[in-house]
């Protein structure tokens, strides 16, 4: 018996009575589905244009597909400030709160509220830094973001975001996947599933981390969930080789690598012919992409290819991994046709329990780390005419309290704020977002939403709209549900944010 015959026999043996019965129910199910299809064909309202077909040749799973309607944004750079910076000290100016600084928090603020660390009666904490108006739009910003302040007329602030989670990991998951539990596709996965990517020599969805630690949501934040695995975000390292094992090992030449891949592909082809699993073809495609990436990725991720002047504009220190480095890489990636670039910058969890996490100390450094690179990125994109169709998002997972944190009911040495899921600010720029706009309002304390609340799913629906999709239509069938990024509750595309 040849090896092949033996394998075939083993495969058959593995097919048990249970498998057979499972297969039967599957067949019943498909009969049912066929029938259900019939009724909907006759039903009056349900017959529209049918679901959008996202099927592709498994050999090119990232091939570009047109969106549903003409898009405003062709690509996305999403910057997530992991740990939740206090937007009360950056964008959401509260003069009333300033007046009440240091007073005991009224009981009505605390009744029925749960906090991560605040106990007893905390003191109110006004804006820690002075605010000023900038630009023609007169946006209020604190003095911590002097570079971004120059761009406010291109920025669309959403000051009335709220979330359902007050712990970092689930709140980050909600912001990135639309669901508070692990196992759901991230926005970047949905975008590459729906649109593919323009450059077949690079992944369509790339992730870069900075700030010394991964976001607490972990790799689930750029996971493909139930979507095919090719739509998962590819994480590059910020220091050293950006993509591990991309270069050929010593004494292995590129032609030799090619021959190895060819043999491997032949084997995989045979496996595919035998078992017919499309993921096998996808695997071949992934090997091929890695081979092409050897050339292109090394080149595109190399910031040294940029001029000294450009690197200086971003504030890049040579040889050091940083948010600035990642911002420049992000621009280089989207320029080469990468669909979705996700940046995480860690270290914003400013409780005030240590110097590094104090709003009057470590927070300043964090602001410094992101302010200049973000401004340089916006300038760079604008000069290149790319801001028109590149959506830049600055976001976080939740807000922080207008009260000073008093961990365990005691006064603390540094100034900090506790988690507040009820109100925070995020912003967008370019890609069809309306510049110079400030949408929504928090109350006079910046504690709750006073006007035009925006749920995370509303924001997702708006992003999908800018990318050319009705968020109801970008779906993937899984476990009996046509899953979508905005999940099951009604979500609204916020027209006020669209240019």
């Amino acid at each position: 018996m040849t090896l092949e015959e033996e394998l075939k026999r083993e495969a058959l043996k593995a097919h048990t009575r249970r498998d057979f019965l499972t297969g039967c129910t599957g067949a019943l199910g498909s009969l049912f589905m066929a029938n259900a299809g019939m009724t909907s064909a006759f039903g009056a309202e349900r017959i529209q244009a049918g679901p959008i077909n996202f099927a592709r040749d498994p050999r090119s799973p990232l091939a570009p597909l047109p969106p549903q309607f003409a898009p405003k944004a062709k690509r996305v750079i999403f910057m997530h400030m992991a740990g939740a910076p206090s937007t009360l000290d950056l964008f959401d100016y509260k003069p009333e709160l300033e007046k009440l600084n240091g007073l005991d928090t009224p009981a009505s603020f605390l009744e029925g509220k749960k906090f991560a660390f605040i106990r007893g009666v905390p003191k109110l904490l006004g804006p820690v830094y002075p605010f000023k108006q900038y630009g023609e739009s007169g946006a209020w910003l604190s003095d911590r973001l002097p570079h971004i302040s120059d761009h406010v007329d291109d920025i669309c602030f959403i000051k009335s975001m709220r979330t359902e989670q007050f712990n970092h990991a689930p709140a980050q998951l909600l912001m990135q996947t639309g669901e508070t539990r692990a196992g759901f596709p991230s926005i970047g996965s949905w975008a590459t599933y729906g649109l593919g990517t323009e450059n077949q020599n690079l992944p369509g969805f790339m992730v870069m981390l900075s700030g010394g630690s991964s976001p607490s949501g972990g790799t689930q934040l750029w996971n493909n969930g139930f979507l095919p695995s090719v739509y998962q975000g590819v994480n590059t390292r910020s220091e050293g080789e950006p993509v591990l094992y991309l270069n050929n090992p010593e004494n292995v030449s590129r032609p030799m690598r090619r021959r190895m891949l060819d043999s491997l592909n032949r084997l995989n082809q045979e496996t595919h012919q035998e078992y017919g699993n499309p993921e096998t073809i996808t695997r071949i495609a992934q090997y091929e992409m890695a081979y092409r990436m050897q050339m292109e990725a090394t080149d595109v991720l190399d910031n040294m290819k940029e001029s000294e002047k450009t690197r200086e504009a971003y504030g890049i220190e040579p040889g050091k991994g940083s948010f600035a480095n990642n911002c420049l890489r992000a621009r280089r990636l989207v320029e080469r046709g990468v669909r979705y670039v996700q940046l995480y910058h860690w270290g914003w969890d400013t409780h005030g329990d240590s110097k590094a996490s104090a709003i009057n100390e470590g927070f300043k450094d964090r602001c410094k780390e992101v302010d200049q690179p973000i401004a340089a990125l916006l300038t760079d994109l604008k000069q290149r005419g790319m801001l028109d169709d590149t959506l830049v998002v600055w976001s976080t997972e939740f807000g922080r309290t207008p009260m000073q944190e008093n961990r365990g009911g005691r006064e603390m040495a540094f100034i900090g704020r506790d988690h507040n899921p009820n109100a925070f600010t995020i912003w967008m720029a370019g890609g069809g977002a309306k510049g110079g706009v400030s949408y929504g309002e928090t109350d006079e304390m910046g504690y709750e939403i006073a006007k035009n609340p925006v749920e995370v799913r509303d924001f997702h629906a708006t992003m999908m709209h800018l990318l050319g999709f009705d968020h109801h239509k970008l779906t993937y069938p899984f476990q009996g549900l046509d899953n979508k990024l905005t999940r099951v509750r009604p979500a609204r595309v916020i027209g006020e944010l669209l240019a």
Partner: protein
Amino acid sequence: MKYLILTLLPAVLLICLTLIFAPDGNIKNDWFRFLGGFHPLITHFPIALILFIPILEIAGLFKANINTKPVIDILIKVALLASIAAPLLGWSLAWGDGFSGDMVTAHMWAGVLVPLSCGLMLLAHKSNQMFMYFITMVVSVLLVSWTGFLGGQLAHGKTHLTAHMPDSLRNVLGIEKPIVVALDDPNTFFGGRIAPVLAARCVTCHGPDKIKGKLRLDSFAFLNAGGANGAVITPGNSTTSEIHRRITLPTFHDDFMPAEGNPAMSAEEIELIALWIDQGATLDIAAEAMAGAPVIDISGLPLEVIIPDYDPVGAETDRAELASAVAEIQAKFPYILNYVSRNTGDLDFNATMMRDKFGDTEFALFKPVLSRIIRADFTATSITDASEELLLGLTKIDNLRLNETQLSDQTVAKLSSLKTLRSLNIRNVNVSAATKNKLATIEKLYTN
């Protein structure tokens, strides 16, 4: 006697059915709705057949040598069968789909009386009672016409026959012109207070551009005319008004309005609409008539977003002309040429991934599709002045990126003739100040 029973029994049974199971406005089993869908189809048979009987009789008067009697006999029998089937299906539609209302009831009763009069006509014709035959024929013709007219009003709106009547004829017949003005007098309660709310909340989908469910809400006349499911307001009674039912449903309900995830109407808006309907829902109520009515500031209302319908059929038509040319190019140059969206035949061109491997020879192969390219990206490709004519063939171009190419000043200057161009990128292209000046009319010009 047997013949008598056979002829009239179905008609009587039909009357009993409609008496006992009168449509009550609730949606029922899908089978009823499914069968009901055939009502508009079958309903044309009794109309045509019954109307043909007098025509045949009149024709018979002039051609004495033709014996029309056996033909008419068959005609009446088929008409009878059809006139039984049509109201039966109609009842199924009304019962299953939850139709109700005065017009539905009138249409239904006229409809179920047709087979009765048709049956009597058959008996009279059989037994040669010419006077009875004449009477029943006239009654049948009138009944079926009236039923058909009511049915037309149900399906196409009350004014379906008079809507486009010329004024001269309108004056002779004394028929008033239906109100079609879009704006109602702002001094009326409707025009000043209800219409702005409808405009902000409903008109995106129920307006001149998009008429979902055949319902328009951009004027009093349209609101009054109702939509595909009939009237949306019951003057004097908000609780039985469809519009009120829909806006007060739980948001997850399939019938909830505003649909598409748009936010629910506020309690004040709902109260305002209810008040107006309860007061009779007319145009005569003055804007200030109801002292306690809520005042709504529409400036703070959320902006509705028009989400283009997914229209693959329209796209296919739009693409048909160039489909094979596009497919050929896509096969030759994968990933460079794509449709802008799934709703159009317009094209997006991006050759930057090929860098200097994309030059004039390659671009020449795109000639057949140039006129449909909306966006073209040549960044860092090796095209030269040899492609000038091709570039000028981009007659629908909106966004053109030529940065980092070797094009000359003269060629770039000629791009000012591209009338649709709104964004041009010529960074790192060697162009003179004069050329930049010439191109200054382009909305977005990116230069060094």
